């Protein structure tokens, strides 16, 4: 399997999930490629494309909430940030992504 082919496949599959949730993929090409590559590597290693930016605990119930796109499981948090934790997905109504910042869940 080539990582490049898997990245393209993940991009296609993720868009289908994120779109109805009101999110789109980031326009930052570097970030997009970096996140997708890490997820493809996670999938190669663990069998599932977990979020590359959040800690796995080996507790299945917890970890399944970190399978990308994890938007539905962190809706309130991500809607407040207008992006997902990694920045791979951005809310559709965002014009300037560079102004978005990570906000800890506790502060939301």
């Amino acid at each position, binding site marked *: *399997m*080539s990582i490049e*082919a*898997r990245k393209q*496949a993940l991009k*296609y*599959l993720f868009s*289908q999930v994120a779109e109805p949730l009101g999110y789109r993929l980031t326009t930052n090409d570097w970030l997009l490629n970096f996140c997708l590559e890490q997820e493809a590597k996670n*999938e*190669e290693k*663990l*069998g*599932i494309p977990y979020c590359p930016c959040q800690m796995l605990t080996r507790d*299945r119930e917890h970890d399944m909430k970190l399978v990308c796109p994890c938007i539905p499981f962190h809706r309130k948090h991500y809607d407040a940030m207008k992006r997902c934790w990694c920045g791979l997905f951005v809310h559709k109504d965002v014009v300037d992504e560079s102004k978005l910042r990570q906000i800890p869940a506790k502060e939301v």
Partner: protein
Amino acid sequence: MLTNAAKVEDIAMGGLKSVEINSHEITLCNYEGKIYAVERRCGHMNAPLDMGTLNGKILICPMHFAQFDITTGERLSGPVPAAPIKGLPQNAVSHFAFLGKLMAHIKTHDLKTYKVVVEGSDIKVDV
């Protein structure tokens, strides 16, 4: 050798159909109106891929959800780890654990692809 496999109208857009030609089991895939042919059996555990799902050009196995690119036959992902089933008797749990350990050693292979020619309403596959 090009062999008649099916009619174009047999496969709806996004659809799958299995055919057997000269002992070759083949899955025909209609991706945006273009027909692609790949081997029918999954590169993981031989499940019939025509009973899976075609999402764009990604063919998903119905058994363990391994994914393949129908245009190249390339494996895009291996099997998805199964969720634990609760409430099973201990002997069944042990049996599935044994199978899991056994199957952890097998690889998922790329699919063989076949050249497809559409002449009129006939789909011909080079086997």
